[in-house]
């Protein structure tokens, strides 16, 4: 505890190596800033956070200093309101604005612009500059991020985030003096899969969301609700925004333990599948479907991309013994294994914050950048932070002095070891990156568990070691080896998971859909695309008399169904999802579904002939032992603040008497929401709601995302109020299932081992339908080693694996282990890795 005097007022603060800017903001004081970012820390480039610092109480003159570069210490005296500091800050803004264009009306940042906020905060309300402004040409940075360089104030946040934090290489500061240019060497799509965060990192409108720009709506008109990303198993918190029935964008919703300040591009830009014109929207007659239910055996397949409530409603409809998990057999077994391994592990799975704090990492068989991308960004921090912490301690550099610390460590990284078949995006920060076939990766894991080799030695010295594996390798042996290694090292164990509710579905302990009996008369498929899961899907469906599909995507299964009940997407539904840690979190409806579309659990309840509220569905779910306590994920629907619900619309929402006036000149009533404490309205509680219900970050004078500072207990800390989510997974429950190292991998002359390749863009079925993501999805190609590539001459090849036959172009990956090839997932329903054959294509022939 320390006492700091700000403008002669004593404040008790916890310095903790924080700077004065962080202290001031944590105290709720307004101090303008640009180059400091709570995750990127300080460089002192913009000079906007100037304060007057006094030596002691007798010092009346003080000196001007940058708050973000000064560590907070006990007894410090500073002034934010000293006229000299105020004038200095105003002059800084004035100079920043000299070249700033007259763009606000056509700038997508307008209305949520940190530069606007800071300009107003410093009181610079009139431009006196009468001379010519410098201009820049823009670059086309691909389908996701828009570039408008004129608006740059040269705070350097973008390159610091992109290069230093996210490890991108193609965005840089070019040119010099007031010509400095933030862009690429030439036009082209930004390579980093985390480029979307530039939109939120850049305090101006240089980098904006290109998908939002195509259907632009200002922040003050977006109806938002607390939501979750549904595009992988990490469970990042998001804030999707809607207007006129169209989902307009997704923004990051800070969660201290999970996504922090950043999302990946799949999560940020995958939302457009909600607006897909091809979505099923016409419902079959539910009474007819109800009639089918009594015609004989009924079975249902739940889905890892449907909420717990939807799955529970299906289970209640068909009965527990007829409830199956709509997951491919291999994946089903693997997820069940990983769940079992996590439950017996002595420590719970680490949150992403704990991943970032790890000081040694072993990554087995997994390329998280393409499976659970946000985890990869966290792992990168785990690789870079320990040397910076060490340098800070020896050189006495405060922890917020980012530039100095990075200068001090240069390219040093933590003990970070990767063993995968293919190159990963994290190889650059690894001490060692080994290219091994999955069985060899597993053998390495067991060897480390046995304490053999230098990797084991390096990991054993760590305080907070971490072992990461997952579904990406498709190999149960790797998962078991990872668990063995983690147990031996006393490390945290982290498994990646494919879908937003994979673990949630696994907790139902249902058999996989492949085990479904063949005498089923009526099959109810909940958000399950059988063609993606089972090679014999078509034959199976033909045998079923009535196929009922509930889905929000136009899948081949929907096309083959006898009855389709269109379901709501995550943005139109309430639901609870369980992420890779076993954390159950709630997402809320952003806007009500229109037409025939209903929430899946509502359809299923209707088929069962019951009417329940969402809370009743959750309560019934909580009665199952595996889900005890799940209703604590968010407040119940009756929850009120000062008797009021939480409004989904900002208090400035415009056009309420005109939006529907062309249809009916009488204003519509707001749709009721019996399922949550939120309202589809601008009326309601205007203060800060508890974290699980926070629909947006806004505070008076803080219109940008950076209003987040006002919602945190302290800068960078958790949100105020109760934490979001509850943990469902038990820990340390018993004996370790025995695992033995597989025999070493032997290449075969007559066959090739096809390994699965996931890609951040395209491998996940929901986001694959978003135009921005689809534009970046690489054309399917088979990756082979150098020798094979030379032999096949680069031409298209015919791949036979299981019953599937595919013709694919070739791509060379020289580091691939001999005897393996890498096949993109989703092209066929065969389980990978699998042995198959490869024959030269037409050009070879």
């Amino acid at each position, binding site marked *: 505890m320390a006492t700091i005097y700000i403008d002669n007022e004593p404040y008790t603060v916890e310095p903790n190596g924080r700077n004065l800017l962080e202290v001031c903001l944590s105290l709720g004081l307004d101090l303008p800033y640009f180059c400091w970012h709570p995750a990127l820390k300080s460089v002192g480039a913009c000079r906007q956070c100037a304060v007057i610092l006094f030596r002691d109480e007798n010092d009346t003159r003080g000196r001007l200093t940058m708050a973000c570069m000064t560590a907070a210490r006990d007894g410090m005296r500073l002034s934010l309101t000293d006229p000299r500091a105020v004038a200095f800050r105003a002059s800084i803004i004035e100079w920043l604005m000299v070249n700033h264009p007259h763009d606000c009306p056509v700038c997508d940042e307008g209305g949520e612009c940190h530069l606007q906020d800071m300009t107003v905060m410093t009181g610079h309300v009139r431009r006196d500059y009468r001379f010519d402004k410098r201009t820049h040409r823009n670059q086309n940075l691909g389908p996701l991020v828009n570039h408008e360089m004129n608006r740059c104030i040269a705070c350097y946040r973008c390159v610091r985030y992109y290069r230093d934090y996210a490890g991108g290489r193609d965005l840089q500061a070019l040119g010099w003096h007031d010509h400095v240019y933030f862009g690429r060497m030439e036009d082209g799509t930004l390579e980093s899969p985390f480029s979307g965060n530039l939109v939120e990192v850049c305090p101006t409108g240089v980098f904006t969301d290109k998908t939002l720009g195509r259907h632009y709506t*200002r922040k003050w008109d977006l109806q938002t609700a607390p939501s979750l990303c549904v595009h992988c198993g990490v469970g990042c918190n998001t804030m999707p925004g809607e207007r006129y029935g169209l989902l307009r964008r997704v923004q990051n919703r800070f969660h201290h333990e999970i996504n922090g300040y950043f999302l990946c591009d799949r999560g940020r830009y995958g939302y457009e599948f909600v607006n897909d014109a091809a979505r099923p929207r016409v419902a079959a007659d539910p009474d007819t479907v109800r009639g089918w239910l009594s015609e004989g055996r009924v079975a249902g397949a739940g889905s890892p991309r449907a909420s717990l409530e939807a799955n529970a409603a299906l289970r209640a409809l068909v009965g527990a013994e007829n409830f199956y998990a709509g997951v491919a057999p291999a994946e089903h077994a693997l997820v069940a294994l990983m769940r079992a391994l996590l439950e017996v592990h002595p420590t719970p799975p680490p949150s992403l914050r704990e991943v970032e704090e790890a000081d040694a990492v072993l990554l087995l068989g997994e390329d998280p950048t393409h499976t659970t991308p946000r985890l990869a960004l966290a792992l990168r921090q785990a690789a870079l932070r320990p040397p910076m912490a060490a340098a800070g301690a020896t050189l006495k550099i405060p922890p917020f002095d980012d530039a100095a610390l990075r200068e001090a460590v240069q390219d040093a990284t933590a003990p970070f070891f990767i063993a995968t078949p293919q190159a990963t995006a994290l190889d650059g920060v690894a001490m060692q990156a080994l290219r091994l076939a999955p069985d060899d990766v597993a053998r390495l894991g067991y060897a480390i568990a046995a304490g053999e080799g230098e990797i084991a030695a390096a990991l054993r010295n760590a305080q907070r070691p971490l072992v990461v594996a997952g579904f990406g390798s498709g190999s149960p042996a790797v998962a078991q080896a990872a668990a063995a290694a983690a147990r031996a090292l006393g490390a945290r164990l982290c498994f990646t998971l494919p879908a937003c509710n994979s673990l949630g579905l696994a907790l139902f302990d249902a058999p996989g859909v492949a085990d479904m009996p063949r005498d089923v008369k009526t099959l109810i498929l909940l958000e399950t695309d059988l063609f993606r899961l089972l090679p014999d899907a078509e034959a199976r469906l033909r045998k079923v008399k009535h196929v009922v599909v509930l889905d929000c995507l136009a899948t081949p299964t929907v096309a083959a169904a006898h009855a389709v009940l269109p379901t709501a997407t995550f943005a139109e539904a309430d639901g609870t999802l369980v992420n890779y840690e076993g954390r159950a979190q709630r997402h809320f409806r952003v806007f009500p579904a229109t037409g025939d579309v209903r929430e899946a659990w509502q359809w299923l309840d209707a088929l069962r002939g019951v009417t329940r509220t969402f809370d009743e569905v959750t309560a019934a779910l909580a009665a199952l032992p595996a889900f005890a306590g799940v209703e604590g994920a968010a407040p119940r629907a009756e929850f009120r603040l000062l008797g009021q619900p939480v409004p989904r619309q900002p208090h400035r929402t415009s056009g309420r008497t005109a939006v529907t006036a062309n249809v009916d000149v009488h204003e519509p009533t707001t749709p009721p929401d019996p399922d949550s404490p939120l309202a589809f309205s601008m009326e309601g509680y205007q203060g800060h709601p508890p974290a699980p219900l926070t629909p947006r970050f806004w505070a008076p004078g803080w219109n940008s995302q950076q209003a987040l500072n006002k919602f945190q207990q302290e800068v960078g800390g958790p949100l105020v109020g109760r934490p979001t989510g509850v943990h469902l997974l038990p820990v340390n429950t018993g004996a370790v299932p025995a695992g033995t190292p597989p025999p070493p991998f032997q290449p075969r002359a007559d066959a090739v081992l096809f390994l699965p390749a996931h890609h951040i863009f395209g491998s996940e079925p929901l986001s694959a339908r978003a135009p921005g993501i689809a534009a970046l999805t690489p054309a399917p190609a088979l990756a082979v080693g150098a020798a094979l590539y030379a032999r096949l001459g680069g031409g298209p090849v015919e791949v036979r694996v299981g019953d599937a036959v595919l013709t694919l172009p070739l791509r060379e990956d020289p580091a691939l282990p001999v005897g393996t090839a890498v096949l993109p997932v989703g092209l066929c329903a065969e389980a990978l890795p699998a042995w198959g054959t490869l024959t030269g294509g037409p050009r070879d022939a």
Partner: protein
Amino acid sequence: MLSILHTIWNVFTHAFHRRVTVRYPEEKRPLPPRWRGRIVLTRDPDGAERCVACQLCSVVCPVGCIALQTTQDETGRRYPAFFRINFSRCIFCGFCEEACPTCAIQLTPDYEMAEYTRPALVYEKEDLLIDGTGKYHDYNYYRVAGLAIGGKDKGEAEHEQPPVDVRGLLP
């Protein structure tokens, strides 16, 4: 007491004064150009739509009677895809005109817009857009904005230097 009687008398004498009422439909008063009546969307001096669909008018409107959707042409010029004013709600406060950064939305001295049904008071862009510049003759927002649009490249707006050559070595 007397003053009360005086007042009554005074008021009584007004019975023989000239009446000040203007008998409206027969007689019309000339209105100043800044009268706040029917709203129009104007064009810039080059004849192009002035509105850039910034949504400032709609957010400032105290009764929320303006709704629009932003869109842009292939050159990046922004304009409203639709623009709707529900005049049955408008209170003719003029805030929208004050907020408009492009002088696009303007109130005119036309107040004769009574209708027998409310839906007839819902005006779409076709009903609002006029062919002239309205009260402000010279302003062309895109001439001062930094955004490049069709016919105006970077560096061609007022008070702009030509675009920086990032690869240039000259100071």
